């Protein structure tokens, strides 16, 4: 776990391919289902609860996947790709619901970004933890 902490504190060069791949994965596998959900289940009452859950779960899973699969510690990368994706998602929401008609709505959307980014961060951290555990197991088996 020291490596994880060190990486977050020290920083270091960002793994840009993973940032791009994370963003692409979110757009391809999360945005199309989200658009379909919004389009076809717009009048469905539980959608107001399910949609945020679906968005936060998607961001967490993406972070977890990047954290687990990438070499080294990648926690900032899912955060950046999630931030880019949230902007795209906000544009989608705006196109579907015109949520930015009032400035207040834009503020609400920006506030929603914070838990989204937290989810991505938490997912990446969990992914890194499981990757670390897997590596430890492999090392023990080799010894």
């Amino acid at each position: 776990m020291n490596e994880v902490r060190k990486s977050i504190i020290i920083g270091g060069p960002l793994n840009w391919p993973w940032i791009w791949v994370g963003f692409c994965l979110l757009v391809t596998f999360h945005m199309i289902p989200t658009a379909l959900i919004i389009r076809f289940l717009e009048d469905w009452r539980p959608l107001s609860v399910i949609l945020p859950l679906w968005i936060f779960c998607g961001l967490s899973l993406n972070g977890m996947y990047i954290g687990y699969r990438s070499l080294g510690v990648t926690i900032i990368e899912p955060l950046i790709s999630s931030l880019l994706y949230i902007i795209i998602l906000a544009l989608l929401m705006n196109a579907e619901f015109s949520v930015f008609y009032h400035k207040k709505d834009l503020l609400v959307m920006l506030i929603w970004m914070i838990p989204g980014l937290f989810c991505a961060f938490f997912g990446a951290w969990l992914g890194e933890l499981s990757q670390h555990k897997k590596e430890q197991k492999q090392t023990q088996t080799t010894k």
Partner: protein
Amino acid sequence: MNQKIDSANPKVSEFTPEFLRWITTTTFGAILLVLIPRWSYAQTLSQFFILPPPVQAAGRTIAIGLSEFSGHTPMLSGIELFNMLATLIVFYIFGPVLWLFSWRVLHQFKAAGTPITKIMNVWSILFIIGGALTLRTGFNEVTNMVMNRIVSAQLYAAQDVQRTKDQLIGDLITISNEAYDYYILPKSLNGGNKSYEGFCIPLSQENNDHGQLMIVDTQPQKIMFLAISSKNNLNTILVSLSSTGQVSEWKFSGEYN
């Protein structure tokens, strides 16, 4: 194990250029598919440029019909013609050709052993542009096809219900006329002599392709008929015939309601 801190060669990518090309293509395709049409609805010019040709053609047909109806001679403006042609060329010809051609070139490079390490070379960019356009068009067409099938099935079902309803109403009017004939005729002419009592629906009219007709209640001055659809027993029509021959108190149930 920390690549950022420990790795001797941090520039080594974990992804092949092919993977990055494909994932970038699907991403731009998804953005084109989901976001661009939504933005375009607000702007007439880009709406014509983005909407698929069949939708544009349908829109034009309606616009021409309305224009003719209001006494104007319909004329397509140059910009409209250009946009329709541009949409056809870009989405249905230019995109797939560009994609397949650049794919072939990249494949040939690979087969010849020419290293294409950079993701952002010209052929890769063409591959991404062409692929995004093609994927967007393909996905849009497939979903349109599926939706068209669903909508046409729903329309057919709705029209089928309406058709059966109209046929049953026709049957009820016919049987009401016959019942009123029976009511006004004297007993000597096989009539009811100012009474509906004794009237029966002829066997040939009791059951047909549309449904079933039956008498629910018979009183001297009033008779009630019930028609049940042959396709759905819950779809019924209840009607009452008065002594003046007036068909009234229509009651529809099920999908007829």
